């Protein structure tokens, strides 16, 4: 009969754990269990021997013996898992080279313009604007005249126009490919009454040679908000918020006076240059600023033209170039990348 002592308990612990390491079968593991924590196992015997000790030693050694027992049980169950799993895969040898590529699942992409339009419109939608669309083939009346750009007005030079070969006895050749999304201003106001708060994405066309920064075919987003009490301050606030959401908190925004015949006062909004943070570089023609959009308070003549009383209703309008913003955001230098539809361009995220 071995006397129960701390040394004995420790000796059993060390020997049993060393033995456990080398066990490779479930049968061996069972034998180990029986010989240590089984009815006649060495640890069991030591614990049984506690009864002969004085109370203080019994408490002390009982605690030590039970700690070792718990440890043995835990190790036993872990070892059992390991052995069972080894057994499960022992019979099959079909390991693979996990470094080989998987199936090349084709992944599609939306066109960068589509994604940009969604992002930009989304910023306005969250401010209560609704999305509307309109015709690309337009009447001169909507594209120009309703926007306070009469025939023979020099401002027409701002929009080189592609005309549709369609003759009209009264008006000559009044059909064109819209040069901007602004004709939708009059169309929307003619059809509805205030309050109006819309954005209109769509293709526009100009008679223009294509180069790295000019496309004859591009996408604009028009915005229009008309109601009682809409002010230039609201225009600034709305566009400022748009810029913050689109370009981030850290971009600074600048509003300066500009001229568009269908607004008064007119504005263009710039953000500080992404490339140089406003210090001046090639991207921003050394100004530190990049023009993002044109805007202004809807000209009273435009409101009158659609039957709104400009002494009651005021509003603002804006127009922004989608590709231009995408180019700035993504650092794309050549606008021709968008519509040459090269998959190598389209497949990028």
């Amino acid at each position, binding site marked *: 009969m071995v006397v129960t002592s701390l040394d004995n308990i420790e000796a059993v612990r060390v020997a049993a754990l060393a033995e456990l390491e080398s066990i490779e079968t479930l049968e061996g593991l069972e034998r180990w269990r029986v010989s240590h924590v089984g009815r006649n196992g060495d640890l069991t015997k030591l614990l049984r021997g506690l009864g002969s000790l004085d109370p203080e030693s019994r408490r002390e050694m009982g605690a030590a013996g039970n700690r070792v027992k718990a440890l043995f049980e835990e190790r036993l169950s872990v070892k059992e898992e390991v052995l069972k799993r080894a057994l499960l895969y022992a019979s099959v040898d079909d390991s693979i080279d996990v470094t080989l590529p998987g199936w090349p699942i084709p992944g599609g992409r939306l066109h960068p313009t589509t994604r940009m339009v969604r992002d930009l419109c989304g910023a306005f939608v969250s401010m209560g604007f609704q999305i509307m669309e309109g015709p690309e*083939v337009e009447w001169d009346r909507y594209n120009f005249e309703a926007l306070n750009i009469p025939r023979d*007005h*020099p401002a027409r030079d701002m929009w080189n126009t*592609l*005309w549709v070969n369609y003759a009209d006895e009264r008006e000559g050749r009044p059909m064109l490919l819209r040069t901007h999304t602004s004709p939708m201003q009059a169309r929307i106001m003619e059809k509805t009454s205030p*309050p109006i*708060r819309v954005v209109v994405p769509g293709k526009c066309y100009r008679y223009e040679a294509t180069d790295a920064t000019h496309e004859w075919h591009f996408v604009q987003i028009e915005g229009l908000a008309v109601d009682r009490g809409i002010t230039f301050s*609201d225009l600034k606030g709305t566009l400022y918020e748009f810029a913050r959401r689109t370009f981030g908190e850290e971009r600074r925004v600048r509003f*300066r006076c*500009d001229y568009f015949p269908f607004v008064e006062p007119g504005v263009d909004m710039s953000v500080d240059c992404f490339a140089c943070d406003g210090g001046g570089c090639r991207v921003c023609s050394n100004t530190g600023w990049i023009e993002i959009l044109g805007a202004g308070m809807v000209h009273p003549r435009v409101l009158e033209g659609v039957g709104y009383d400009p002494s009651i209703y005021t509003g603002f309008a804006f127009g922004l170039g989608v590709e231009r913003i995408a180019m700035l955001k993504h650092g794309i230098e050549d606008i021709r990348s968008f519509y040459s539809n090269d998959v190598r361009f389209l497949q990028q995220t």
Partner: protein
Amino acid sequence: MLVPLSWLKEYVPVDIPTAELAHRLTMAGVEVGGIKETGAEWDPGKVVVGEVVKVEPHPNADRLTLPTVDLGGEAVTVVCGAPNVAAGQKIAFAREGARLFSARSGRIEPLRAANIRGVKSAGMVCSALELGIGDDHHGILVLDEDAAPGMPLVHHLGDAVLDVDVTPNRPDCLSVLGVAHEVAALTGLRAAEPELDYPEEGDPIEDQVSVEIADPHLCPRYAASVIAGVRVEPSPRWLQEALEKVGQRPISNIVDVTNYVMLEYGQPLHAFDVEKLKGARVVVRPARQGEALAMLDGETRELSPPMLTIADAHDAVALAGVMGGSETAVSDGTANILIESANFDPVNTRRTARALRLGTEASYRFERGIRAELAPRALRRATRLMLEVAGGRASKGIVDSYPGRRAAPTARVTQRRMKQVLGVDFGSEKVESTLASLGFEPAGDSKGDGAQGWDLRMHPPYWRSDIAIEEDLIEEVARIVGYDAVPTTTLSTPIPHPQPRPREDMREELRDALAAAGMYETISYPLTSLKTLTDSEALAGAPDPLRVANPMSANMQLLRTSLRGSMLETLASNLRVSTGKGLRLFEIGRVYLPPKEESEERGLPEEREVVVGAVTGPRYDLTWLADSGDMDFFDAKGMVEAALRRLRLSAAYEPEAAQPFMQPGKAAAVSCNGKAVGLVGEVGLEVLERFDLGGRRVAMFELDLESLHRAAPDQSYGYRAIGRFPESERDVALIVDSGVASAHVQAIIDRHKLVKSSIPFDIYAGEGVPAGKKSLAFRVTYQSDRGTLTAEQIDRAQAGILRQLSSKLGAAIRM
């Protein structure tokens, strides 16, 4: 418009840094697109003012001289080839190492020490070309008397030229004076007006010339003076320099003054040789039909009414507001001149210039609508300057015929409106002082702060033609005070009720579905050519496409009626750069069809949105896993099925052999709820050849969005509980005639009320199957909503289905 700072300073003593000035102008709407600094490249230590002390002949060369130049205490001798060098001149001197333009190399190069024909040259006396300020390199540049020897040249001649992008509403800023007025308002300075008076020592103007205006609408005002006994010769240096700085070539003193004053005031002027005006008459009249005019650019043009001419007693002598005639032009021998300073109708001027494709500095200004008040001022200014540079005696008095006179314009701005438009009221004092700084003058009947708030009435200054309504004044104030001073607020007006957009929602869902199916979205040009439309079989049975009146190129003449052609072109261009990869592309875009009769907008084309998709090449990118084969009809159809499933649409596919675009046996018409919505198939071999895709297999689909939308009017999606009772699957293999479509077999199976779904999973013909027959195997899923189906119930159902198949299609069970 180029504005030299030195010229600007003649009117307004601006002293803020040029960059700051440019910034303020830009913010106020007068955008400075660039600043060109002259003399920035002249090294102050190496390019200096010199005075020619004496000029001695070169011992070894007749054409060369040896001027000695005083550089402010230091005297150097150089070798010079210029014929005009003379003692007493102030000149620009460059030392060795100075970087100058070399006419020989065409580049800027450092000046090297030279030994010319045996004499060492200590540097160079510069021409305008070498300094980069003019074209002249035959003679040296002679400086003004007041230049101090030794002074860096940049201090004497250096300048900055502002390149101002003038918007169409601001013809006043097409002049240095106009920009000076802006600068004055933006810097708190006052702009000085040019000197206009001159001695009137000649004969009374009435005795020398008569002016008649035939149409006051086309010519509201005509002012003229006559100077007798001028000398036509090159302009003095200051005038040539001023013109060169703004990119104009000096011609002669008379012409140069007309150009100078045009740039100064924005008022075009013209000088005639009075002797050549027949009858000493000026008649402003519309051209006669077919009237010919030989013009200053050497061209003779045929005119027609209502083009406006300046005529003498017989013939047109100038095209009003556009260009003078060559007959009456000032030439070297001219002694007596008539100076014209007139106002012409903007619209007629623009139409004339456009009809003749003859845009000039003059027509550019007139078509923007300059004020008639400029005419007499610019006339007096030009007369004064011509007397100064060309001598002569000015007529007593001027002609100032003003039949188109209108009352001085008044504009009004109120506190109420300013708050309504801007959202802020700057206060009457600020508003009035800001407008005054721009040259506006009170119109008298203004009201101060009363119950209605302040109410100001102002006369715009004589140079501004763009002020008409209250908003114009509001903008004037806001742009000068600065848009930054306007508060930033968020919209507080009610948000309009949202309108549902089911069609667009569906389109976007379709877009997402096709991208999710592995396709890249493309966007192509909607203009195309007849060839592309014909080659893609898009014209057969389709309406004639609309045509562009002024196409930019031959392949962009027509508005497309189909997206097929551009899709095939996109495929081909991609395959030219990457041949080995599979391509899956789609586009959602508009086609332009002749207007429908019932459309609310008669005349405008119907813009219909269509979806086109194309697949070609290997199903998977190259992979070690398998050779997956090339995509075909079923890949394209799989895309369509995936997309329509996403739209909660079920479609039927019927063989379509008549479509010339697709291969006869490999095309299907797609319909939803009995309505045709599109086409899917493999593209015809001859079509592929035409698009440089010969030898490939290309499968495409076309869907019409409007038809899809009509087929699925209810776009709201929903969920239903799944059946409570278990499903049972049974396979059935059938032998049918090889011509029987699997969809027909499946339709009969699916008709049984206990069949939940069925899928064809095996098709086989060959050994074990009689000739002319095929084996079709279906997995059929049975389910009832009344209870768990027993084996007997399923057997009975399957037997019933087989009886149907047998009687309708002659199908037999395959054992």
